[in-house]
């Protein structure tokens, strides 16, 4: 029983770490540009399929290095062409637009790569379990968690110590003032969007190694990221981090005792948090309400 519980808590943490990676990208875009990016799951899937396509030429490590930036470039193009005209309008419009994009992504990946699931080969030494006692921890899972920790750390360093990051954080609080101080807000939004999509692409490659690829997987991973953001508090990246880990562990633990509710427990958690702290765990007064 302890073994099982431990297994599921670890499992939950790993899944939670993964949600964090995806939710942070969503959260970045939401905070600065007020855009709920419904296509985020679509970008994730595209990132995964790009990795699948280039793995035969560059190997897994090459794909891991190349696929996320390529996804970010696609994101940048879409931001420039389609989302930019919608800034400053009712958030309804960008929501609907990305919603439509999610349809197009899903259908196009199905059209190009087929509807059946595709496996992605990962290096053999990562696929092995660490030891017979902890059979459930494969090297790949540890690697995933490691990647998440590294990218989250890098993201927080970027936001705290670089000029771009400081501007992004300032823009989240008051974009108008930032603009009045002479910062190119359009550029800022584009770069911020690209960083968010980069994270989606990275999540896609990591997910592909663990789960394989399917055109519909993006939609399934999107909702937990939403909940992570709401639980953590809209406007707070640390909150998103906390929220993602929390719902991951909660659904992992529930899987032990009440497997059919492991998905529903996230929603229960969200309802409880909203009842006690209407702005989410770390959401503050005055941030996006």
């Amino acid at each position, binding site marked *: 029983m302890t073994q099982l519980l431990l297994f599921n808590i670890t499992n939950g943490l790993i899944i939670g770490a993964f949600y964090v990676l995806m939710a942070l990208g969503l959260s970045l875009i939401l905070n600065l540009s007020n855009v*709920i990016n419904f296509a985020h799951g679509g970008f994730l899937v595209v990132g995964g399929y790009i990795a699948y396509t280039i793995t035969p030429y560059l190997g897994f490590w090459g794909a891991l290095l190349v696929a996320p930036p390529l996804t970010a470039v696609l994101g940048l193009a879409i931001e420039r062409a389609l989302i930019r005209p919608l800034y400053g309008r009712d958030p309804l419009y960008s929501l609907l637009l990305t919603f439509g994009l999610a349809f*197009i992504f899903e259908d196009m990946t199905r*059209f190009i790569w087929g509807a059946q699931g595709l496996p992605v080969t990962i290096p053999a030494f990562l696929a092995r379990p660490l030891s017979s006692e902890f059979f459930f921890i494969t090297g790949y899972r540890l690697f995933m968690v490691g990647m998440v920790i590294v990218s989250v750390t890098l993201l927080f360093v970027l936001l705290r110590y670089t000029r771009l990051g400081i501007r992004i954080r300032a823009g989240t609080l008051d974009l108008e003032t930032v603009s009045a101080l002479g910062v190119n807000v359009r550029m800022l939004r584009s770069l911020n969007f690209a960083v968010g999509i980069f994270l989606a692409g990275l999540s896609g490659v990591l997910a592909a190694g663990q789960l394989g690829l399917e055109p519909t997987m993006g939609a399934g991973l999107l*909702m937990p990221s939403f909940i992570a953001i709401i639980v953590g508090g809209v406007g707070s990246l640390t909150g998103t981090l906390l929220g993602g880990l929390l719902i991951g562990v909660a659904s992992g633990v529930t899987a032990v005792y009440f497997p059919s509710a492991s998905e529903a427990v996230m929603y229960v958690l*969200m309802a409880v948090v909203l009842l006690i702290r209407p702005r989410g765990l770390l959401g503050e007064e005055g941030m996006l309400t």
Partner: protein
Amino acid sequence: MTGGEGARKLIALGAIWAALLLAPYWMPPLGGYTALGTRVLVLGLAAMSVNFLLGFTGVLSFGHAAYFGLGAYGAGLALKFLAPSTPLSLICGMLVGGIAGAVLGALIVRRRGVYFAMVTIAFGQVFYYIAFQWSSVTGGDDGLRGFSRQPLDFGVFSIDILSNAENFYYFVLLCFALAAAAMGFVLRSPFGRTMIAIRENERRARFLGIPVERHIWIAFTLSCFFIGFAGALYALLNNFADPKGLHYSQSGDFVIMAVMGGMRSFWGPLLGAAVFVILQDYLSSITVNWMSFIGLLFVLVVLFFPRGLLGAIRRKVQA
């Protein structure tokens, strides 16, 4: 309001009702079929319910499919387990959707804008998972089957709405008319005017002493009652309730219908629903990639038709 505008409105209203009343006669020659018209009415009512909140209170709910689907399951379960009565199933569906909306609405009315949208989406998905997982009651992924709409029994005579598609169309049209009248009545009342005041300037409304949260909660609850009713009709139309009807992608369909038809107008969502339903019906019959085309429709409407069809027409007329 000038006399000319009043007359134009009357003519438009007459044209809408004439088209709806005669639909079973003019649709088949144009390649449609009566059940398609019924679908337009039901989904149009759902889109109008969403717009009641979106267009007239300015609150973006992206999870209304949940209450639509709850209405459908409520009606289906009532027919299956309670009593074989069509009116009873409609009332049950409406109550299930509306009460769920009232409870959840109390949790979320304090949020605004994108936060409100996200919370409504997430809460909407709860019901999707319940319907999906609780298969002993809901039928799970296969949906709820094993019920069918019953003849309307008036004691001395009864009307067959099961096998006769035209009778069912007129029954749905009657329900639609009642719901639309109720909606119009609310919107013309002082309460409806207050909703519009909140949409236009929430802070000012608050300064005038209007309890904004309570108004939004009531508007949210009412719109859930309306959409629950539409969901119940949908279950009767298909003799089937589907977990997909609860999914957020269905909410997206409702919102795009409202936007495409024209958010600021009462009848816009019905027009949007007609265009959407017919387009979807047509596209899925000619291409397997219809999903991309629907996605493209979303993109095009947002970029080029944000005011919707009626908004664009109205501008032309006024210019």
